[in-house]
């Protein structure tokens, strides 16, 4: 087989022109879609499936409360967040959670679909919440949603996430109580976790043995 260099598309197209066009095409494809994650490119977002800032409380939604089947359970006045640890159990209402010392963090929802939006979250740091039931130490934490089913109803978080001071049991988003579609009455928000693992409509948090 002869090692003849490619001609780059015949005599009509030079290789330089071909590469230039390929580069321009790639740059254009990026420009007209990247605005869904980078607000500075928002005006150029022509064909992306999401728009940064579009959604309840300025944040897009993947799974709504209705789709998750939690409309009743999430708004039930009898809702309690159950905490289980090595030192016992607790059950806290939303009012009791709100009465605890709150922290505010700016953290992104990074969806595996391809969009990322940062938001300001307010809530109770997970580590201080679990300190009341024996702490986390180097153990894993299991988070369970009110959802009846679905692949991400339960997620497990390693101690590197659970003990991070920025990891919150969030009660508020962008200065207002969490929208039902963003996980009311309480959801988890942790840095560097993909969106599907930021469990919404929390029901139960366990420190695993």
């Amino acid at each position, binding site marked *: 087989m002869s*090692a003849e*260099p490619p001609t780059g598309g015949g005599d*009509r*197209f030079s290789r330089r*022109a071909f590469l*230039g*066009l390929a580069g*321009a*095409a790639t740059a*254009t*494809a990026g420009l*007209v*879609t990247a605005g869904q994650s980078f607000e500075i490119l928002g005006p150029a*977002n*022509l*064909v*992306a*499936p*999401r*728009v940064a800032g*579009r*959604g*309840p409380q300025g944040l*897009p*939604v*993947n*799974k*709504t409360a209705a*789709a998750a089947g939690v409309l009743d359970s999430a708004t039930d006045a009898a809702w309690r967040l159950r905490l289980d640890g090595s030192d016992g159990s607790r059950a806290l209402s939303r009012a009791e959670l709100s009465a605890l010392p709150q922290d505010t963090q700016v953290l992104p929802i990074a969806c595996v679909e391809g969009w990322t939006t940062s938001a300001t979250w307010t809530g109770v740091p997970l580590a201080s919440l679990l300190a009341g039931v024996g702490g986390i130490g180097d153990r894993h934490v299991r988070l369970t949603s009110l959802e009846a089913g679905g692949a991400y109803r339960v997620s497990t978080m390693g101690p590197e996430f659970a003990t991070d001071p920025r990891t919150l049991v969030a009660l508020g988003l962008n200065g207002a109580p969490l929208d039902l*579609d963003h996980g009311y009455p309480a959801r988890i928000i942790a840095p560097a976790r993909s969106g599907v693992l930021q469990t919404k409509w929390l029901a139960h948090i366990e420190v695993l043995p």
Partner: protein
Amino acid sequence: MIRAVRGLLALTAFGCFAVSATVLPALSPDALLRLGVWLAAAIVLHDGVLVPTLQLTGALAGRLPVPRAAVLVVEGGLLLGLLVSALAIPPLVTQHNGPANPSVVPQDYPANLGLFWAADAALVLAAVVVITWRGRRTGARRTASGPPS
């Protein structure tokens, strides 16, 4: 050099194959089928739509009394338009099927596509006019100073 590049490409392809062999069994048969359709559609779109359209346009534009660079600009503009149109297909299909919630595919995609094609066409037209005008001016200057001996 060429042999080394070919070897590297073959290794990369084998690496991708090895990774997919570990990941793909986790997908449901339905998801595998959709993945196959998606990959096949990309090839059909490229080989069946993009390339023939560009070839045909290049051949037609090549007959016009414009410089080769202008033909290239027309093809480039067409390529960008077709590419952005292809990117708009999934959101348009989702909109047609009914999105899961209002924050999914919230844009007016047909209007945005129209806007892109209009800007694309205007830029291509301006570039063709400039290239043709400069080509004629250079040609006229060459004629005035006489052919090179």
